[in-house]
């Protein structure tokens, strides 16, 4: 083989090699399944934000309600939180505000109802997500507010 034809052969071999290498890369990236990471964890925090906003907007009403032990007005405001669903409770210093008749377990326990009774509401057995916030009242006493939502 002549010297000139050898160098041409080298060039052709190199180019072919490069093409093959790129094809292999292409083959692996195209044919292998896409690496999609599914995030199944619940990363929504709408309830927590709703609780903070509710407390901030109704702060004076919350203090008045706890002072007078009268939650009628606050219950009306609480009922406006439609987007949280139907089975939602607000627990202020262990006084429970309910929405659409959805009660928390403790109330049923106090009344002595059992799941076997016909009137028993199955909602009470449902798992609930709980969001807590602590706020000070006028005398620096701490008020604990819990938002409980039925885990759908």
């Amino acid at each position: 083989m002549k010297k000139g034809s050898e160098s041409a052969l080298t060039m052709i071999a190199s180019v072919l090699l490069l093409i093959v290498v790129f094809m292999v890369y292409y083959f692996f990236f195209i044919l292998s399944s896409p690496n999609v990471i599914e995030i199944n964890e619940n990363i929504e925090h709408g309830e927590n934000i709703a609780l903070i906003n509710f407390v901030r907007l109704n702060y004076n009403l919350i203090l008045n309600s706890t002072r007078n032990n009268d939650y009628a007005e606050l219950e009306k405001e609480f009922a406006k939180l439609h987007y949280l669903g139907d089975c939602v409770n607000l627990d202020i210093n262990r006084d429970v505000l309910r929405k659409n008749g959805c009660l928390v377990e403790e109330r049923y326990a106090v009344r002595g109802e059992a799941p076997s009774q016909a009137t028993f509401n199955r909602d009470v057995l449902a798992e609930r997500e709980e969001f807590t916030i602590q706020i000070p009242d006028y005398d620096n006493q701490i008020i604990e507010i819990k938002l409980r939502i039925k885990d759908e």
Partner: protein
Amino acid sequence: MNKKAIATPLFAIFIFIILSTSIFLIKSREAGDISEFSIGNTQTGIINSYLQSEKDYLFYEKLVEFNEYISVKEFAETLPEIDSSFDFRQHFLGILEKNLKEYNPTITVNPQLNADFGKKYYYVNNERLNLTYEREMSITKEPIIDFAHLETIKENGKYKIGEILNEDMEPEEIYADIKIKYKPIF
């Protein structure tokens, strides 16, 4: 040049690239690796920490607000006979700081009515991450009392010093009985 001299190293490099690429791609796409890799927990932890800090901030904000109301009332009741050197702002700050320290002795209040509760730390810990989120809890408020106006008062009398919310969360105007210490002429 010998053909073997060209082909052998090129072939070796070619095989090396193919094998290393294959191993990398196969190992990085193993199902086990993917299931372990979770960004959801980390994000949830970080967002929860932030929201908890917002709740704590609201707590301190209201704590300062109510203690300011109480302090304004106390300020009006405890004003001594004043002279030209009397510092209204300092007198008020003393009362506010005393009231806030009843809640937590480490709280400091500076003359700009900035209540400093220090730093709060929130931790996000899991197998792969130890993250600390810190937030400076410092509340600055526009004072209810107009101190500049009080300093211009030259005559005895009852002056309105501000409006607060009382224990029933109703607005209440606060008046202070200001007595000026006159210097004896002779």
